[in-house]
């Protein structure tokens, strides 16, 4: 990335030598990313991040094809709000957060032009079965295209395989190591998407705007490194996550782990990505917990932060049937490829101490 800032800083759309050099790096990046996501290079539409990719998918397909749109109730707001704005259908989920296939079948029909279900949920880390979802969509809404927000999935899952049933795929570089502000929408050949931002006609006319060349190059490099290391990272981090989650369940009473099947242990978490530990604590408020954890050097989150920085009540947990009260005590501990055992031990200790303190003070 750095040479793109210091030596090869020309606009890749330019005609001169340095521009052509920048263009070459951009095209290389497109090839690398396409392979990592499992699409043709020409399918990659670079964007300024995941939100833009999601908006482009929903608004762009609806603008191009008309019809109605639908998404799961647990989608990121970048999908949920566009669908709501278009008066679309919201598909219910079960207690694990998995799309209710019967409800899906009921809510879509021949008029449906787009169904959007994220491969992995951003809050709970729960993985959706896109193959089963695609089957229902093909049966009940044969002309619909399938979009998946794979932003949260890419660091942990073989998106090329698991998102194969999707016609449109969103990714965001910052989730796997690139700087923030760069992402992509994969638009498979033959899928019509109307531009939501017009101008110089970049990215096959679907997304105009000068390329963020350093960001794109960085995202491709990070994607390649992620794919190479993914199996090793997932195995190691999943073990750490299991230590953390099992430890919390064992030491803190009134603890509910979301998105897991009963039985406990690693087996119960097979439906979640490795880096996600998502817990609800009875009788506490997340904001207070986050405050105390920060003092102990644990930087975590609860649901999603709104623009003010306050924690908003989780629409994901509400859709999964959690009470507002229990959902208000949620904690999202994310692990990454750099996480080590001592991090887990520190988090376990800090969370257990803080939860106990909050319960004692009754706040």
């Amino acid at each position, binding site marked *: 990335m750095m040479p793109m800032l210091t030596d090869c800083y020309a606009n890749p759309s330019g005609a001169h030598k340095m521009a052509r050099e920048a263009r070459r790096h951009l095209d290389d990046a497109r090839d690398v990313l396409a392979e990592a996501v499992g699409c043709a290079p020409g399918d990659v539409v670079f964007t300024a991040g995941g939100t833009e990719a999601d908006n482009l998918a929903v608004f762009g397909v609806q603008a191009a094809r008309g019809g109605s749109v639908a998404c799961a109730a647990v989608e990121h707001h970048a999908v949920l709000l566009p669908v709501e704005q278009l008066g679309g259908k919201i598909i219910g989920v079960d207690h694990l957060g998995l799309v209710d296939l019967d409800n899906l079948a009921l809510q879509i029909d021949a008029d449906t032009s787009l169904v959007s279900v994220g491969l992995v949920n951003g809050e709970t880390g729960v993985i959706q079965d896109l193959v089963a979802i695609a089957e229902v969509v093909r049966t009940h809404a044969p002309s619909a295209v399938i979009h998946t927000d794979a932003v949260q999935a890419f660091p942990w899952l073989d998106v090329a395989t698991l998102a194969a049933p999707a016609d449109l795929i969103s990714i965001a570089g910052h989730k796997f190591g690139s700087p923030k502000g760069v992402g992509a929408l994969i638009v498979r050949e033959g899928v019509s998407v109307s531009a939501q931002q017009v101008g110089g006609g970049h990215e096959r006319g679907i997304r105009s705007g000068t390329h963020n060349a350093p960001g794109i190059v960085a995202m491709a490099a990070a994607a390649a490194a992620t794919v190479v290391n993914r199996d090793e990272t997932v195995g190691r981090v999943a073990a750490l996550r299991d230590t953390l989650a099992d430890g919390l369940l064992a030491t803190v009473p009134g603890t509910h782990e979301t998105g897991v099947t009963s039985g406990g242990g690693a087996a119960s978490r097979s439906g979640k990505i490795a880096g996600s530990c998502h817990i609800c604590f009875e009788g506490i408020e997340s*904001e207070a917990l986050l405050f105390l954890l920060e003092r102990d050097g644990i930087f975590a989150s609860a649901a999603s932060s709104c623009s003010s920085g306050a924690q908003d009540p989780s629409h994901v947990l509400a859709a999964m049937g959690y009470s507002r009260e229990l959902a208000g005590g949620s904690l999202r501990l994310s692990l990454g490829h750099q996480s080590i055992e001592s991090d887990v031990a520190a988090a376990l200790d800090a969370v257990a101490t803080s939860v106990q303190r909050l319960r004692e003070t*009754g*706040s």
Partner: protein
Amino acid sequence: MSAVPVLVAMSGGVDSSVTAALLKTQGYDVTGVTMKLWGGVQDSGCCSVSDVEDARRVADQLEIPHHVFNFGDDFDEFVVQPYVEAHTRGQTPNPCIECNRHLKFDKLLRRATALGFDLVATGHHARVVDTGSGLRVGRGADTGKDQSYVLHMLTQEQLSRVVLPLGDMVKDDVRALATELGLRTADKPDSQDVCFIAHTTGGRQNFLESRVELTPGQVVDGSGEVVGSVDAIELVTIGQRKGLGVSGVVAPLYATNVDVSTATVTIGSRRDLVVERSPVRGLHWVGRAVHGEVDVQTSAHGSTSLGSIEDGEIVWAAPTSKVAPGQSVVFFENDLVVGSAIAD
């Protein structure tokens, strides 16, 4: 000795900005917090995104940590919903008092305890005065900005943990200090009106309409004759002159009574609004009951009138304007809050 931790409620306005700055100067270990109370669209008050931003940037400048707490559910339950219900009963609510009672000095105070803070500071223009026989809310030095009325209900336990650094300052000095410190909020206008009601989108009527069905009412004169109508009986306050749908009269007419059960507003002259006694409920004395005359304040920025409390009524020293039911009435002695009640 390590610095005393204090949590400062920062709304993003100039008063709470200066409060944080003063406490930092005085050597406290200051943490700023902005309460996100309201998610709706509003153009005034204290929790739009730009207000949170102002608070955060002032905290950055003062090099203190800043957090945002979402108390939206509590705000709706304890402030907004009771506000709506009071209107449907034909009462005049004071949401700022309820916000202070339930949010700033209860929810936030409890949160502070849990997080290890004994003290909570706000930018109110009022004082906490130790009389030797208990703590009292005292009037702020700036009589025009004094907020002791909206803090009158603080308990001894609450007062023992509340810091009000602006009590001895006048507003001009607060702004001057903010300017001197280069705080971005120095020239920010004072907040006005009810913070959760946007005046760009139809104000109180639109807001109430979004929550309850409003009732059209008739306007009658002193003899009971119907002389006009109003769109919403819930929006009429005693003493109101405008919007009563009365035309063709020479002398000014005021709403002198509002009866929600029959959806009737009675109008009359200024003289009909004048009373010698005002019934109250929920009488509370901070210390010993005061027999004899006290200064009585019946609205947030109103002047006081002398009165004594006898048998559940305020007996005014001189006839005064009727108090709208639901309004808090606060009793002062020597500029200290000594008691309160609700107008009936």
